[in-house]
């Protein structure tokens, strides 16, 4: 039941933790450090789901999300991660096409559950 998960974040330690969590859940992972890398990785890695941090260098998570949807990645599940937990951010993320939203610092169990639920909804 393994899926392909793309992790997009610029904090190495957070990336490490996310890689661990996803692999432990049986998923295959790839990592992108900024927005441009993320767009390229989606095209090459073709993930089922993207864990997308909002605060990225150059091109932030909202732009990446919007671009992905504009490029036709409709089936791709996008879960946004941000330290900025305000409601307006959540609303903005959902508005540009994200499927779910998790605020930092996150509960690992909730994150894993959210990923699992998003992937299951497709089936």
């Amino acid at each position, binding site marked *: 039941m393994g899926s392909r998960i793309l992790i997009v974040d610029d904090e190495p*330690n*957070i990336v490490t*933790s996310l890689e661990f*969590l996803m692999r432990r859940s049986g998923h295959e992972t790839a990592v992108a450090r900024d927005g441009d890398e993320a767009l390229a990785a989606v095209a090459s890695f073709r993930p089922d789901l993207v864990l997308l941090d909002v605060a990225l260098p150059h091109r932030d998570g909202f732009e990446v999300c919007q671009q992905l949807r504009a490029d036709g990645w409709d089936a791709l599940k996008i879960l946004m991660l941000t330290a900025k937990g305000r409601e307006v951010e959540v609303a903005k993320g959902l508005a540009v096409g994200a499927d779910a939203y998790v605020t930092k610092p*996150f509960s690992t169990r909730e994150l894993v559950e959210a990923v699992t639920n998003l992937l299951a909804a497709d089936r």
Partner: protein
Amino acid sequence: MIVAVSAGYLGLLFAVAYYGDRRAAVGRSLISNGSIYALSLAVYATSWTFYGSVGRAASTGVGFLPVYLGPTVMVALGWFVLRKLIRISKRHRITSLADFISARYGKSTLLGGVVTVIAVVGIVPYIALQLKAVSNTFRILRRYPDIVSTGELGHVPLLQDTGFYVALLLAAFTILFGTRHLDATERHEGMVAAIAFESIVKLVAFLAVGAFVTFGVFAGFGDLFGQAADDPDIAALYTLTPEVGYGGWAWLMVLSMLAIILLPRQWQIAVVENVDERHLTRAVWLFPLYLLAINVFVLPIALGGLLRFGDGSVDTDTFVLTLPMAERQPALALLVFIGGLSAATGMVIVETIALSTMVSNSLVMPLLLRSRAVAGRANLGGVILAIRRVTIVAVLLLGYGYFRVAGEGSALVSIGLVSFAAVAQFAPALLGGLFWRGGTRDGALAGLVAGFTVWLYTLLLPSLAETGWLPGRFVEDGPFGIALLRPQALFGLDGLDPISHAMVWSALANVGAYVGVSLARRVDAAERAQAALFVDEGADAGLWRGSASVADLRALLERFLGADGARAALVAHAQGRALPEEADAGLVRHVETLLAGAVGTASARVMVASVVREEPLGLDEVMEILDEASQVRAYSRELERKSAELEAATAGLRAANERLTELDRLKDDFVSTVTHELRTPLTSIRAFSEILLDNPDLDAAERKRYLRIVAEETERLTRLINQVLDLSKLESGRASWQIGVVDVAGVVRDSVAETARLFHDAGASLDVQLPDALPPVAADRDQVVQVMLNLLSNAAKFCPPERGRVLVGVRTEDSVVRVDVTDNGPGIAAADQPAIFEKFRQGGDGLGDRPRGTGLGLAISRRIIDHLGGTLWVRSTVGQGATFSFTLPVAPGGEEG
């Protein structure tokens, strides 16, 4: 017969006057037209003109003329002066010449008194002239058909002297005319009507004689002048005689020009009795015409008389009367006598009324008012009338006395000119006062006294000396034999006729004293106010301050105008409004003006001052008023300044508010950024803690790795919190500083030692170049260490992994110690350089790994260096590394250390 006709004529005059008064009382003034005004001005032509001109012409030819040319010129060309006098007098209810001069110079009672005395003394000879003319002609006419010279009339005892009875009769007549009631305007319409009537009578009489002599006795002008030219003695009259040379002509012209205004009777008629200043426009041509008419036959009569009575047996002054008598024309002679009587009575009546007004208002009242007993009397109006009546009698008796003492020997014209010269002394003070603001009370006083003294000495005393009352040597040799002081050749000025001589010296003394004293003394406030009113007629006196109760003012008015008059005057002033209890300055001034009409300006001021709580208007007062005005201006300036300050403060507040709003926004951003920065390490810590908790099966290496991350992130979190707190302290100014002498080399060594591990981990080399000797700096050592650590850790962070090279250099520059930290990292674009010193703005975006740091290090460092009086900056080119430098000031006295 003569007495009866004379009495009848005087009765007629009285009837005319009575009619005039009646008409005035019902508001249909008889005299309100320009012709009557011009005719009444002809009161100028007295028995001097009527009889004396012929006498003068008989001895000097055309020498009689300047006395008429002067007034002609004055009225025809100088009418604007007259108009100004009329306007000012009407505005201020000025009733006499003395009043006018007194009012002009600060309402000075002293000045008014002096003018009055001069006028009375100066006019007495003139009155005497009239009495002499009436008395002599009466006695000559009584001898009809005999012709006698005045010398033959001889001296008679007082009680048999016609002149004495004429004087008494005229006094009684004048009292009836002029002082029947007290009027605030001091105008006598009936009298003016009578004077105008008299002017017609005397003109008709004189023309009748002239026509009779020219066409009855002789066959027209040609015959008359022809016969005269044939007589060598008479022919000499056609040329100007040395006695009245050109200088004499000029002085006579000037004297008569002044006399037409300054003689009290002329002032009375021309100024006081003037109903409407527009009447002047007719007088301007009608009055000169009258003078021309009355002079046409002067020369023919004089020549006729000389031809007829060639032997000198008949007094030339009586030709007008004696020619008809010699030709057996009793009716014409009687007409002539009536004409002469007209001329004399007109003059005496008006003159004495004018003088009595001056004496009562300017001389006696001010004196009486000083004694409270009189001031307290209920009806002062009666007192004033009594004073005037006494004055009239006294002046006429004085005139008679002069006539008895000095008049018999002199020609009519000579006596008249003495009076002319006396009143001419008023000219500098009056005309100067009209057109020169600088004229002062003291100047006017000095001029009048000086001029009058010279007049007394050079004209009056010699005229008395001629009669034997004074030793004749006084005139010929000078007092005490001092030739220089001879009255008619003062200081050796010889060769002039007595009048010219007197005028030269009196004019010099008068004008000199007036101008000199005026210039020598400052003008006081009251004088300044009055000067402005007179020189700039039409202005109003604004600088008066005081208050009085209306009841007091009413009581004051009642004493002069009666209860009805007072009420009417106050009601008229109120103009329909209710009278207030407290009078304002305007009402007080109105009352003063009303009183001035009755008692003169100076007395009115004294009386009003008795009931008014007046704040005397001295220079101090004026200055105070000015001060108040300038204070008000200062206040308004202050107000403007305050308002400007308020605006500035408002603008400041608005700016501060905007700044606060901005700061608030910045704070929100800061808090938002800080929380974000806090969440990042927290996220790692929580994630790995849960991973470690949920996965007890992790192998030891992995467990250790994750635990290290937790430890690192915790440390990062702590550092971040500390730096936020540091920055907060620095920004709010609450940081505590321990400034002391700091050895920069020591700071660098310690910092390098502390960061050695960082460089080791990054695989970078660190070289330090310290000079042998460094001056100590004044700074807080811990803070400088923090800056050093920030710069070193930044350098370690941005060095390329494994080939980093960092260089630390320290050197002395001028009065600072400079530290450079140079790395071979990626460098910073010029555009980004300012931003790296801002909070949470880290360099290295997008270039590989994001550097580890809080984003606060440089912001904190810059604030520290700024606070210590140094500078922190960066020099960098992209791709060629960066150099961060800072300076610190050398400690005082430590430059050699």
